[in-house]
């Protein structure tokens, strides 16, 4: 018993990144004491990894996906919709999965005790939303465009405007927490988090697109953000199985 399997490989993060950023990204100061220094153990995909939480039956509030209608009045800011599809790496839509978002308000301030940026809080904005993808894998949120904000990573550091996304896929390796950015942001070249993704085209896939078709006349600007999962590549480059 237990003698058939081969020894587990140790791999360097560098060799299994796929499109993801490395744990050790020196320009982002927060990584310095938080990235593992030992090699990773390459885990065969057992049933524990080929499964993942399923939330298709979750009872959500009717306004959970509309961040502009969660308080007595409307929040200040540019009203926008953000919608898109959640897809597996095989291109198949992922229906009935939970999509969670959080963001700063239009002034670039989070409703959080740790956020000390001297920009106003908005009493009508919490900045949290969630919804389930429909049978075509589509999700939709209504919110206000978040503001850029300063952080203390380096002198005069500013985060480009972004919305945090958390999604589950069909299996544990699909689990993705990312940030959605807005087209044409002048802060992109200066942001170590955005630029932690080494491939330029992969960085561009974190940027939503403005779409007039999703824009509602006299009401809200429409942005599209499709999320394809499967960016992790736990197949080390030197191991020649599939592709």
């Amino acid at each position, binding site marked *: 018993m237990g003698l058939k399997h081969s020894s587990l490989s140790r791999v360097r993060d560098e060799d299994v990144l796929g499109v993801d950023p490395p744990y050790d990204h020196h320009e982002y100061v927060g990584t310095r*004491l*938080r990235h593992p220094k030992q090699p990773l153990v*390459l885990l065969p995909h057992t*049933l524990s990894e*080929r499964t993942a939480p*399923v939330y298709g039956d979750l009872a959500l509030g009717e306004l959970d996906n509309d961040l502009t209608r969660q308080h007595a009045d409307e929040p200040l800011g540019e009203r926008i919709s953000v919608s898109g599809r959640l897809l597996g790496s095989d*291109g198949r839509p992922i229906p009935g999965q939970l999509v969670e978002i959080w963001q700063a308000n239009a002034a670039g301030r989070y409703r959080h005790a740790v956020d000390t940026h001297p920009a106003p809080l908005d009493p009508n904005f919490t900045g949290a939303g969630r919804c389930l993808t429909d049978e075509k894998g589509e999700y939709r949120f209504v919110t206000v465009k978040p503001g850029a904000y300063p952080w203390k990573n380096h002198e005069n550091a500013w985060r480009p405007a972004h919305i*945090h996304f958390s999604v589950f896929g069909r299996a544990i390796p699909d689990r993705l927490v990312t940030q959605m950015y807005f087209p044409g942001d002048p802060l992109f070249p200066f942001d170590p988090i955005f630029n932690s993704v080494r491939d330029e085209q992969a960085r561009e896939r974190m940027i939503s697109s403005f779409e007039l078709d999703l824009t509602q006349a006299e009401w809200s600007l429409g942005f599209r953000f499709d999320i394809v999962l499967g960016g992790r590549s736990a197949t080390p480059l030197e191991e020649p199985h599939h592709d």
Partner: protein
Amino acid sequence: MTDSDLLPVPSQTSGPFLSIGLLRDHVGASVVSEDDPRAIRVRGRLLDGNGDPVPDGLVEIWQANAAGRYAHAEDTRADIPLEDGFRGFGRSGTVDDGWFEFVTVKPGRVPGPDEELQAPHLVVLVFARGLLKQLVTRLYFPDESEANATDPILSELDEAERATLIARAEDGGLRFDIRLQGEGETTFFAV
């Protein structure tokens, strides 16, 4: 949709404000009810390379039920019962000075890479400011020494690596610290 649209979106850090989106009347607040007679409490601390607590992180667990069945379509072993309401997912912030906590049940054994049974374990995911993608590890149980000794994953690790993955009994529950870096660094997996 063109082919280039089918390439994956990269990971980014959850940042320091994840509690707004992921811990507000959150999913996975408990895996089972505290009243469940089988309930166990798993506590631990998330620690950085200086041994300091990480107070802005998130720990998630994913597991089979006590009979060893995942609440997921991929687990087709219909002879093992599912339980109503059991999802097998837990989520805890580390806002309390790096402490996280779960109320759950010990999962049953599930098949490993060669279909031999694995020792009971939880899949553990870690998110935090400073982590540009989640870390993946596993928690094994200290009262399963026989199963642990033949587990196809654990038995392939060296003693120091294995020690970081086995929780210890403490105060009637389990204690499982996660060290991101340095002395006693937790063994993390590429999946």
